[in-house]
């Protein structure tokens, strides 16, 4: 019920702000090609399959930790192997290592079959707010990625691992984490776009 109420309350600033500049309104750019309910149901069914056939929840963030560990071992093997995190989670090739690269391929197939392939470095909505500099976007993404991965490892998962797989198992940790993902996200995105 809290969620529903916050949704209603959120509509007021949304309408007021959206009227300000159409280029800063997300709804003026293309959205999903399929119904979000169909896609959501599909992801729900996919999680049955990953649990049943692979004994794994859907998750993405640990992939990046594995890649980071593998790169670390190339440049500083002893140091990387001495880190407690990599002693507990040795970076080895497995199910998760394939899952995220495969998702890149899946994204390509979906975009290609849907005539939705973008081929762009900067999204027009970003350009409308922050200009044409690819270097600025690169710097912000790099910084954002560092925060995001640090936060995901600290919290124990990302929007997939906690946000979908954890919440659907009714894990309290995941519900707390996903609410904090959106509180943190809204608190930073709003001033970024509207101040």
């Amino acid at each position, binding site marked *: 019920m809290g969620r529903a109420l916050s949704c209603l309350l959120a509509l007021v600033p949304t309408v007021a702000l959206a009227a300000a500049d159409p280029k800063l309104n997300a709804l003026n750019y293309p959205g999903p090609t399929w119904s979000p309910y169909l896609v959501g149901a599909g*992801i729900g069914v996919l999680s049955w399959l990953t649990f049943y056939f692979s004994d794994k929840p859907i998750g993405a963030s640990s992939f990046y930790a594995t890649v980071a560990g593998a790169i670390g071992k190339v440049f500083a093997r002893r140091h990387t192997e001495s880190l407690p995190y990599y002693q507990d989670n040795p970076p080895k090739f*497995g199910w998760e290592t394939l899952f995220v690269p495969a998702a890149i391929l899946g994204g390509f197939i979906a975009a290609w079959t849907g005539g939705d392939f973008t081929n762009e470095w900067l999204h027009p909505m970003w350009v409308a707010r922050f200009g044409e500099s690819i270097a600025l976007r690169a710097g912000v993404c*790099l910084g954002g990625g560092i925060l*995001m991965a640090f936060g995901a490892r600290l919290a124990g998962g990302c929007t997939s691992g906690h946000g979908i797989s954890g919440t659907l198992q009714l*894990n309290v940790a995941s519900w707390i984490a996903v609410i904090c*993902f959106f*509180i*943190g996200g809204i608190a930073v995105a709003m001033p*970024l776009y509207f101040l």
Partner: protein
Amino acid sequence: MIDPGKAVKNVSVNEPTPVAGPAKLIAGLIFGIAFGFLLQKGGVGKYNVLIGQLLLQDWTVAKVMMTAIIVGMIGIFFLHRFAKVNLHIKPTQLGPNIIGGLIFGAGFALIGYCPGTAAAALGQGSWDALFGMAGLIAGSFIYAEFNGSLRGTLEKWGDFGKVLIPDLLRVNRGVSVVIIAVLLTAALLVLEKFTVR
């Protein structure tokens, strides 16, 4: 408090049937392709859809996630009831969950993709996702560097172990599933009525 991990082992009549070896890797490949495909079709690989959610303009992300939770939850608890799957529960630790969650959110707002949707974004030709992925790899290593010192401090704060919503509500899992499914469906109906997208 019941440790769900142990509870599973006790009720496991038939072992779940994880695919082993090369078959397991191929399964990861197929499931990954399906995941990326669905994310892109759902529009959640698009910068405007994700940032639009954080600006409370576009509710696609919430609709996808809540539907996935309802469908996933019903199936997983049904399968678990008949000992066909294991639950994979991470411990509830208020300090790391809350602080990590907020830091994650800040990064989410800056990139406009998350670790999974960045993959779908890259696949659809949004090349800026590459920068985000580079940051995610760097950030993961930085976390590993600090993890040793965090373990004794922040990561111990508010540790409740493995807790499920049914444990909190003190009702059985079936009832909890029904309650959460009804609440999320109500939230989706409200979103469907009041949001443009």
